[in-house]
């Protein structure tokens, strides 16, 4: 089964130039000492298995919100510690930048359209196992879940395959994350260490920015806290955006609070300042769990995977929230750490990764086969120093199955159903996605190659007919 999946993926059309460049960079990374080749070879033969696995998921966290990753606007000692203790992917994407769909991909390794979770609040298709169900069947890990689920209920005590140790309240991050991290702390303190565990700790923060937007939509006469004026973060370079956009994006922008409330630049900056404070709150709660791992003797034996369901507009392209395919919403942190097994303090700027890769990666580390038809790939070889790319391109879905993104090492292609405006960005020269190249004849070949990659990818998916636009993407040229 795995073998078939591998064959399918490798037969995909790859942009040859990208591939060569990618291989070169990855080799260079290895030569620079990411992980010694002999260490990699030895590890491969032994294939050690972590005693415990901790999967930390945050909600709506922009990728550039970790101080140790270069963000100047936050203090994040816990995330800094996580980042410096492991390997982080900077080219990591959500499989669908909206809460439930993104989570369905993380927990199944299948696209959100396949899992029938194309919008928020839908359950995972019953014949597709989630991570908890699969690990319960295939491993001796006891599976636990704390915090936000959203498949379909945001919080619930009933999650197939998991023992639920905390449920959270309604939809508010500050209070429920504190209670959740305390519950995880209690769980780790009281647990007998004899049985291995898989614990998913799913935080609601920094999603509270959604409530903040509704409570700060109307432009005030002046900044409510004048003393903050000097410390408000600047606006991002791509605050000004290319007007040649698909109508889906334009409509989304106009429907957001900043446009309804006619914000000025100061209000945009205050929004960014407030978002960063939510990040710091999140960081403190994550720190509580990491410290407990340390204090109670779990740290050395625990593989930690850290990611977010999707990003946050954060004023890039004058967007807030998520559900678009620009990097601010689609890119997410992906950090893995396991002392002695994953190199410390490494940043992988080369390899593409997706939320779809988390399930197969965890199966790989647990020493089990994956469920059938995984769309993601295990990243373990990269984490152990391999120079070979696992994803030559990745695909992200969006907006009730009406949009798609294809990301190759050099380009990003975005297309929406029934919209003649396509977008193509050269991510090497224009990482802020400000110049749409789709209409330039110079890029006709790249455009056509990316369209074909998407079509080939879609042709392999098992999307049920009741999913909106189930057939659109196979036919789309």
């Amino acid at each position: 089964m795995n073998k078939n999946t591998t064959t399918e993926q490798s037969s995909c059309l790859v942009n040859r130039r990208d591939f060569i460049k990618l291989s070169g960079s990855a080799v260079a990374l290895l030569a620079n000492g990411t992980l010694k080749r002999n260490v990699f070879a030895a590890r491969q033969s032994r294939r050690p298995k972590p005693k415990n696995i901790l999967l930390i998921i945050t909600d709506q966290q922009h990728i550039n919100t970790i101080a140790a990753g270069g963000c100047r606007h936050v203090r994040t000692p816990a995330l800094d510690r996580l980042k410096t203790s492991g390997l982080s992917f900077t080219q990591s994407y959500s499989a669908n930048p909206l809460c439930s769909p993104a989570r369905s991909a993380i927990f199944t390794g299948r696209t959100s359209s396949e899992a029938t979770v194309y919008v928020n609040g839908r359950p995972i298709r019953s014949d597709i196992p989630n991570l908890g169900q699969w690990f319960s069947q295939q491993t001796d890990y006891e599976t636990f879940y704390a915090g936000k689920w959203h498949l379909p209920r945001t919080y619930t005590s009933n999650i197939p395959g998991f023992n639920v140790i905390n449920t959270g309240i309604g939809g508010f991050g500050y209070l429920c994350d504190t209670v959740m991290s305390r519950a995880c702390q209690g769980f780790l303190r009281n647990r007998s260490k004899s049985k291995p565990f898989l614990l998913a700790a799913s935080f609601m923060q920094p999603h509270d920015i959604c409530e903040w937007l509704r409570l700060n939509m109307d432009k005030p006469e002046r900044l409510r806290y004048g003393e903050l004026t000097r410390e408000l973060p600047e606006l991002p370079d791509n605050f000004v955006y290319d007007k040649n956009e698909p109508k889906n994006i334009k409509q989304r922008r106009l429907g957001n609070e900043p446009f309804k409330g006619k914000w000025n630049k100061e209000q945009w900056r205050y929004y960014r300042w407030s978002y960063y404070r939510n990040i710091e709150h999140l960081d403190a709660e994550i720190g509580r769990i990491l410290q407990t791992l340390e204090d109670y003797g779990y740290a050395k034996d625990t593989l930690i995977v850290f990611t977010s369901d999707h990003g946050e507009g954060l004023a890039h392209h004058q967007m807030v929230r998520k559900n678009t395919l620009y990097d601010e919403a689609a890119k997410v942190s992906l950090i893995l750490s396991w002392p002695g097994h994953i190199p410390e303090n490494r940043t992988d700027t080369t390899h593409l990764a997706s939320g779809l890769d988390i399930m197969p990666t965890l199966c790989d580390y647990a020493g089990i086969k994956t469920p059938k038809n995984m769309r993601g790939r295990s990243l373990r070889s990269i984490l152990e120093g391999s120079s070979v790319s696992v994803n030559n391109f990745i695909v992200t879905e969006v907006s009730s199955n009406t949009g798609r993104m294809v990301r190759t090492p050099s380009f990003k292609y975005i297309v929406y159903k029934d919209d003649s405006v396509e977008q193509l960005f050269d991510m090497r020269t224009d990482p802020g996605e400000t110049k749409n190249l789709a209409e330039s004849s110079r890029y006709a070949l790249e455009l056509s190659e990316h369209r074909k990659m998407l079509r080939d990818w879609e042709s392999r998916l098992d999307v049920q007919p009741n999913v909106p636009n189930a057939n659109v993407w196979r036919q789309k040229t």
Partner: protein
Amino acid sequence: MAKKKQRTIVGSPLTPTLLDELGALSNFPPSSEDFKPDGNWVNTYRIWTCHGYRQSGNQNVGLLRIKRLFNSQRSLTLKVHQEILQTDALVSIVEATIECRNNQLATPIAWNLENRFIDADNKTLRQLSYKDAGQITDGIDRTACDWCLFEAVQRLKTSKETALAFDMLEGLSLFKKDQRLSYRSLDPTKIGGENIPLHCFVQLGSGILPCEYWLDDHHRLLVVVSMNKAYILDEQAEKITRQIIEKERKSYEKRKSSQRK
């Protein structure tokens, strides 16, 4: 096809006036000129959260009770009890006894804290519960705790000169550096059709959204607001919390029995 319910975005930050408009305020306990912030007292706050819409998603989620005991000119004791209802009738309870320095910040010097969870059958989940004890030995004059600030703010001068800088030990466990608390103003506030001027202190700092403390003329802390959550002084807070827990238990039972079917 069912019509989507129209919801109005609140649009501006929560204040006591806005909380009243949103129906979050009940009558505050009658004010008393005998209230002594530095004496013995018990304040019970209802915890209310806002989803950002006027019509829906706003709810009471629990309570925070703070009891102050005068020890000496040098120290005081705070007994804290916080209950927060979770989905499917789980209740998170945190209780702490804090010995505080009788300084401007009510700095926590030593404490015992118990964190426990109660399930829908009212049983303690021992596997999630724990007890902690702690003390501060360094930086006493610069350290505060969020719960202690509920006490301290009532003893501060309501004047523009009041401005404190400190680090915060949130929930007696999370360290949040570089906080500042200052007096903002006496604001005209409209509650229940009446104009009641309230004093406002503002706390800004790392790891928190701005937090506003609203006090009456007797220095009694009536409302604490930080972004979408509010702590509202309410004599009925206990009763209301019991009611919401009971309601959630019933609907959880209903959900469970429909799942069994």
